């Protein structure tokens, strides 16, 4: 059983394709305080590699990347 991550904000990007999930995530994370966690949901099959790259490039931490009910779910901690 993996630990439950408590998010501070949820962003649903279901139905959106590249580059929308990345752009929306960057916008949403700007609204958070350092250390807060954003949960992003996406149906874009390109999102898992793209979100990893986004996290590396921006320095925000990818706490978890998983699939849930057929959707891709990411927990991102603001640096």
């Amino acid at each position, binding site marked *: 059983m993996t630990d439950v991550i408590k998010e501070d904000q949820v962003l649903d990007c279901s139905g*959106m*394709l590249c*580059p929308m999930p*990345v*752009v929306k995530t*960057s*916008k949403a994370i700007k609204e958070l305080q350092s250390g807060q966690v954003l949960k992003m949901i996406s149906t874009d099959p390109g999102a898992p590699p793209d979100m990893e*790259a986004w996290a590396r*490039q921006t320095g925000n931490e990818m706490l978890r990347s998983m699939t849930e009910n057929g959707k891709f779910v990411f927990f991102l901690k603001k640096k």
Partner: protein
Amino acid sequence: MSKSDPNAPKRLALIASKGTLDWAYPPFILASAAGAMGWEVGIFFTFYGLTLLKPDLTASVSPLGNPAMPMKMPFGPEGFQNINWAMPNLLMANVPGFESLATTLMKQTFKNKGVATIPELRDMCIDLDVRMIGCQMTMDVFGFKREDFIKECEIGGAATFLEYAADADVQLFV
């Protein structure tokens, strides 16, 4: 900011040289994604690409002379939508309104799949402070005026772009 500053963000320099709907996507998608990653982005809009800076985006797509372009129907059952309609050039060149039909089909297919429109992507680029440079020489050649383009862009020439691109980490010609 230049390379001499180790803390400077990465920089992307793009040249957008084509003004059709299909080719409008790569520069705006790359620019908005890079902006979302915290990079500095500049796009030089030149030749036919310059029209992407007009307030009303009327970019269309032509399957004529575009042999690799898949022609898909944006409606009907999935099997029908996945059919690739082979359209010979001879047919396309002779059917009035074929380009506007192809443009409508592409826009509808993209919308159904969840791809942002070109005006939406351009607005995102503006939000992300993407620097947009319209080519002065192209304006002169085609008889455009500054007022023909969105106020968010600046006008410059090759030297303006090259100076910006010289310090870029990624440079692409689209």
